[in-house]
């Protein structure tokens, strides 16, 4: 059994302008020790999906449906005190902006100790000891003295390490990282990604890596969900996804990415803007921007169906398989050019 099983999850926000369908029928599984990459652009529903899983969306304005089973236990119907026991203890979370994600008026040590003492009946001294140890584990120099510093005395990269230390301090089984490196410089990003890999090896936690960066997904993930307009539009093992993406949106994402190894002089661009979640298009959410759209796409939402030869590679698209294969072959050649032979 998977550690985290999400079935047909819906999150809708009631706003003054109408109902925003932020998440519409998302399903996935996460196994122990694995890394799930979740890619999508702003408004794809990737963050809201996991805030819903954690019970962190405001239920006063959000309607939530579906099922979230964590280790066999249904979380969507769990009491708030039950959820508090799971959050921070069994599922840790890391957020995007380390500058704003730590309380500016409390010492780093206090914030780490709080995480310890919320879930363990230990003395302040013991909590402090664990806080220092956690800081050492994320390679913060002079952890014994830095523990008494305030967040503004740390650089962005160091604050993100503190966030990671805090998420890991109770040795959770799952870490949900929401764009953990987006606000950081590339050399710092490389440090943080390497650290996360190392910690995963040491502790065996499962990681959900939510990001807009296909590069980060390629580096870290075992499995990938591509999200668009509140739905999963493609899911696959990471190698399959990059070797043979099946959905025009994924093609577009890969094509629009300038990359070091690329030879093409012009990027493939996806025309138009991400869809409105207030008034999503009928049929396939991607149809207004899709180059291969036909009538069926505008009328009917394609199911998330498996590829003919791979049961674990699933995607939403009405194109028939031969057609899809032909288009991808052409795209791949254009994308990789002379280096196509190496890939």
């Amino acid at each position, binding site marked *: 059994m998977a550690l985290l099983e999400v079935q047909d999850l819906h999150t809708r926000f009631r706003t003054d302008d109408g109902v925003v369908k932020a998440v519409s029928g998302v399903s996935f599984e996460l196994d122990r020790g694995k890394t799930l990459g979740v890619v999508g652009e702003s408004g794809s529903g990737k963050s809201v999906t996991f805030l819903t899983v*954690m019970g*962190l969306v405001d239920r006063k304005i959000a309607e939530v449906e579906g099922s979230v089973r964590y280790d066999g236990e249904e979380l969507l119907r769990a009491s*708030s*005190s039950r959820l*508090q*026991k*799971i*959050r*921070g*203890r069994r599922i*840790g*979370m890391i*957020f995007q*902006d380390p500058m*704003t*994600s*730590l*309380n*500016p*008026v*409390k*010492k780093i040590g206090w914030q780490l100790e*709080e*995480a310890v003492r*919320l*879930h363990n009946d230990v003395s302040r001294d013991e909590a402090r000891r664990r806080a220092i140890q956690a800081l050492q584990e994320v390679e913060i120099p002079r952890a014994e003295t830095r523990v008494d510093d*305030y967040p*503004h*005395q740390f650089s962005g990269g160091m604050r993100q390490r503190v*966030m990671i230390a*805090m998420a890991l301090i109770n040795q959770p089984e799952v870490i949900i990282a929401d764009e953990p490196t987006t606000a950081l410089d590339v050399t710092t990003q490389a440090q943080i990604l390497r650290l996360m890999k190392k910690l995963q090896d040491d502790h065996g936690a499962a990681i959900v890596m939510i990001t807009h960066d296909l590069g980060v997904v390629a580096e870290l993930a075992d499995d990938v969900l591509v999200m668009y307009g509140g739905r999963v539009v493609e899911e696959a093992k990471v190698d399959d996804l990059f070797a043979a993406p099946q959905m025009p949106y994924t093609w577009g994402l890969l094509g629009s990415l300038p990359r070091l190894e690329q030879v093409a002089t012009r990027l493939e661009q996806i025309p138009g803007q991400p869809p409105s979640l207030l008034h999503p298009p009928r049929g396939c959410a991607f149809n207004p921007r899709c180059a291969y759209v036909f009538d069926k796409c505008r009328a009917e939402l394609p199911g998330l169906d498996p590829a003919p030869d791979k049961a674990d590679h699933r995607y939403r698209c009405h194109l028939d398989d031969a057609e899809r294969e032909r288009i991808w072959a052409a795209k791949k050649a254009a994308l990789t050019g002379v280096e196509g032979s190496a890939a």
Partner: protein
Amino acid sequence: MTQYLIRRIFWAFFLFVVATMITYVIFFVVPADPATLAAGKATKPEIVAHIRRELHLNLPIYQQYWLFVWNLVRHGSFGYSFVNGLPVRTMLGQEIPVTASIVVGGVVMYLAIAIPTGVISALRPRSILDRSGMIFVLVGISAPSVWIGLILIYLVGFRLGWTPIGDYCNLKPTHAIGVCSGPGQWAYHLLLPWITLAVGSAALYTRLIRANVMETMSEDYVRTARAKGASPSRVLVQHVLRNSMLQVVTILGMDLGLLLGGVVFIEIVFGMPGLGAQLVQAAPRFDLPVIVGIVLFATLSVITFNFLVDVLYAWLDPRIRLA
């Protein structure tokens, strides 16, 4: 931090000098002759001249100012009223407790209303409590406090006869006959002024606190705290309140300072002999020492409270303390 404090103290001193100087200059720009007024109607020119000498009004303005500063620093004296010759210090000594009683009681009252209402309506936006709170806020902000005071006097004091409608009683009990005193009487007589002061400000502060708490609730670190598994009450107490009170403290400090300079309308409506009422009497009579005394006290209280706010702010926010 020490440097921050030193800088603050320096500015406080500077403001103090500037405020008193400006008062003097304004006074001398206004074409009036306090000596004539002090002498009363139809007096002989030599008497007026004598009074003028007595009051040092014959000296140039800078010498008068210097004399005032000298007396203040050397003797702790604010001078003597031009009108009745009483030491200004004695007069202020009687009036400050009155104004302070109104202000402190009123502020305690409106904070006691505004903090819980503001916080609760922030936690439950659009709930019935929030909505009724908003109506109360609207009424409180739109109604002038004089009007509220008069309505209260008429309804509560006069029609229902529940409270006295004016007069001030000393907090400290005395046994003099015919003088009301003691904490009970004190509070009883101040009840209506307090309510009057509280209504408008409670409304304003409810709104302010609500906005600040809601803003803090949407901060990323509050989400972090919830993701750690902290309960809603713990999140509120440990992570939200302190951060959302920063702005409230600033405004409260400014308000307190300003109010202590005299709550003119309330003092007049309820016949309370406070600083505001005194100022209204002294101004048309050009009673310079009294006016300067009150201005001085008002400036001092504004400066003191601003300073306290700064210190409190530094204590609340390490980013200032350690910068």
